[in-house]
């Protein structure tokens, strides 16, 4: 079970969190301006990264805040957590 450092509450068990998939996917400002392919890319297409991956988590059984996390999908090493709207630290491969 992962030990996840919530930026608001500190280290907590993975049990307390829900997973939100790939981070930094912005909802298009004008969906109607998009082609179906572009919309599908926003809605369905996600990376399947081997290595450092930027992803979203929510501390569902705690502060209920969403945040971003950089996790190595091979080793589960967590290299960074940062708030929504924050910039990912440099040197991530995803």
């Amino acid at each position, binding site marked *: *079970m*992962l*030990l996840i450092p919530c930026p608001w509450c500190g280290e907590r*068990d993975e049990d307390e969190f*829900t997973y*939100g998939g790939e981070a930094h996917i912005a*909802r298009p400002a*004008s*969906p*109607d301006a*998009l082609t*179906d392919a572009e*919309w599908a890319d926003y*809605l369905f297409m996600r990376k399947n990264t081997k290595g450092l991956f930027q992803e*979203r988590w*929510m501390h*569902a059984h705690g502060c*209920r*805040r*969403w945040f971003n996390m950089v996790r190595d999908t091979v*080793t*589960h090493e967590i290299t960074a957590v940062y708030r*929504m*709207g924050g910039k990912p630290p440099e040197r991530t491969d995803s």
Partner: protein
Amino acid sequence: MTGQPFRIAEGGRIDRAKPLTFTFDGRAYQGFQGDTLASALLANGVRVVGRSFKYHRPRGIVTAGSEEPNALVQLRAGGRTEPNTRATCIELFDGLSAESQNRWPSVDFDLHALTGLFSRFMPSGFYYKTFKWPAWMWMTYEKFIRHAAGMGRSPTVADPDRYDHRYGHCDVLIAGAGPAGLAAALAAGRTGARVIVADERCEPGGSLLDHAATQGGPSAPSAAADWIAQSVAELEAMPEVTLLRRCTVFGYYDHNMLGLLEQVADHQSQSQSKADPFQPRQRLWQVRAKQVVLATGAIERPIVFAGNDRPGVMLAAAARAYVNRYGVRPGNRAVVFTNNDSAYEAALDLAAAGVAVAAIVDCRAEGGALTETARAQGMDCLTGYAVVAAKGGKRVTGVTVMALAEDGDAGGKVTGGRRAIACDLVCVSGGWNPTVHLHSQSRGKVRFDDAIAAFVPGESFQAERSAGAARGTFATAACRAEGAAAGGEAARLAGFGDTPPPAPSGDEPRQAALAPAGAPLWSVPQAPGGHGKRFVDQQHDVTAEDVALAVREGYHSVEHLKRYTTLGMATDQGRTSNVIGLAILAQLLGKDIAAVGATTFRPPYTPVCLGAITGRETGRHFAPTRRSAMHPWHQARGARFVAAGMWLRPQFYARPNEAMMDAIHREAKHVRQHVGMVDVSTLGKIDIQGPDAAEFLNRVYINGFKKLETGRCRYGVMLREDGLVFDDGTVTRLSENRYLMTTTTAHAGPVMAHLEYHLQVTWPELKVHVVSVTEEWSAIAIAGPHSRAVLERVAGGIDMSNRAFPFMGFRQGAVAGVPGRVFRISFSGELAYEINVPADHGLFVWEAMMEAGGAFDIIPYGTEAMSILRTEKGHVVGGEIDGRTSADDLGFGRMMSQAKDFIGKHSARRPGLVDGHRQQLVGLTPTDRKTRIPRGARIVAEPIGQVPKSGAATPVGMIGAVTSQCYSPNLDTPIALALVERGRDRHGEILYAASPVAGITVPVTVRDPVFIDPQGERLRG
């Protein structure tokens, strides 16, 4: 009851002053405090303790530890019964009862053993090859195979015992309390670090406990025993050290989380454990450790030879443990068969305990360091020899020995004459496997070490290190030194001081080198003309011949071999068999073992009861029960409750002698004619505040919310971003920047999460806060023509007139004197209101309204009547909002705003969602207005005839399905809602609701889904 013919007169760690009585297969025996079930059975001369899985061969005790493959028994009875428990791990208590498994009718006479006679027709893959066709016959085969191949029996009644969960945090976790583990614990504990030491046995000391020199006692003090006692005393005096006995570290998970199973009361009789009513039987620990030391020791492995499963063939170290630790002779005349020195120590201890050692058969041509010592004691040491076969049925009666053609060669040949040696005990040692399981589970690599012919821990992946025999270091002094170093290092890395020097080693017990010299002998080939079975995996009855067959059939990968032969897949997970299987595979492929590779080790290390995993979350503690403030009133009025998620809701209120359906129909009819009240506290309520609240609502609902005025309510539908309907509910504008959203009971949580996600992730710039207030408010819906009159009596301060308080209006004011909120909304289609008051006042207001309604013949109604009322009105619920329907499917197409963007809008225009052939919501009535429309019926255009037995029926195209159905007491006809292809174009058509499950087909007329008051005159009146 007989005496204990194989008990040695003195010595061992048993308490002869405390005799215990137990039964095995219904017969009473006696043992002593400190015995295991296995040692007590051996003391009583019981040799056959079970039958094997596939061939039903008689099997005896092979080991003295948790690696036992054979001696699995059914322990206890009734709700406490537990199958597949290892007799070698069961501490004896008074009144213990156990039964052998896998035998019918008895362990001594087993009819299924006949399969052994046909066993050459049952090779690996036998079931796959034989029973694969015809496929339909498998159902028949399976019954017989299961009966023949069963293990123990699962309990059929609930376990009455208590199981606990506990979370732990520590700086250093140490798995194992043998020489290395104790030394590690002392080194780490002395730094002040928080340490947990867990050992699966009942007392610390590890393998030292099995050695003759450790037995000590007042007459023969021993350095090893003293060291253990002093170490334990020091550890127990340290406030930051927790020493857990009978506690197995069974799993090593991500980020240094480890699972521990503490068997708190498994060693106690029922009356003993009853002394403390709060004592759990087992406790599951989840421990997060900064650093871990694995001091899990090593497990001896057997050597494969013909008949090596005969009762009386035992691991040498196990035999040594039985004579030394338990004071039991596992036989009278032993042959020791080894490829290394450790078995000599067993031979010397056996001889000292009065067991005649008929011969030591050492496959090494020159013998080893202790060969001369053994010879000096008059033992017959046959070096360069191997046991080719064990003879006997239910008890080994002797062995056949032959010379090895080449010195210990793995694929060696046996040669020369045969020598028969009579014996009733064969002690085998094929070397030692470090217990690398936890290291491997932690994703650490394992490496094959040729020097000891075993896998040892390689590079670590998590914050762990191995020490002692678990790392392939076998001499006791070295184990202690390594343990101390590992414990000190772990503490230092966890932030605690420098390592103090390890304790002085004192007088070491004798410890031979355990490594087999040269190439180890893994399996002895058949003697010419021999055909006895050579078992690799005794628990799953996998033989060396099975492995060879699998390799011939192309199963060259170790993972394939494992699955095809089931080698190592039994409850012991191949503790004593995996490496041998690998070695045989490597030999057959002509590869090194390192090149063949090991299978992955997975948790749990030893079996864990489901009870321990479940813990206290069982029965009514499985999930919390949510009750509304009015629950006691419902209960007092005889309501029958139904679970709605975690909520309990009144389903209906039957009057004396009133049948369920009568009560439901009475309630539904009464509401439309008079007035009724229903508890709707379970609906989700979300308070939404902030200057951007209107904009936010506008983005999450398909319809517009910007023009909603203060004091007004609006019905809204939410989509998921993929364009399908997510939930519906109402939103009320309480004040300028404050709204109250209601959700369905089922979606209260998911809708809240949906709003939070979009506020925090999608539009963090919006100034809006949301908070769930479901439990802050009690909610009462009052519906029916007299609802206004009733409310006027309790909420006199609010002008209830239609003009002052119209449909979809909202007012605040006192209800029965309690500050409340009144919404004029209707789920039933009648004139109706919903009243919210602070939850603590819910019961009081409910009672006041019931009293005020007395003059109007008010009744309470339950969820069943509510469901009928909404079905009559064509309102959609979970049956229709099933995650596959679009807004247009449900008739909300025109609600979708063209003027704004909202969640799901773009997807709702996907070609698949605007396809003219989609199923749309319709109402159905049976053409005869009498026959109930079957629940879940499929809608077809043609009636389905009798399905012919030949199965040659013509397929009938399905064009829809019934989503809700009931009898409408107000219309006196069954009705239904359904989703039907192009349904809105079919009003007036006759279709068929077919239920192959119920075996009926009902002709139905398609119509508008609103059955009652389509113009909405009642709810606006």
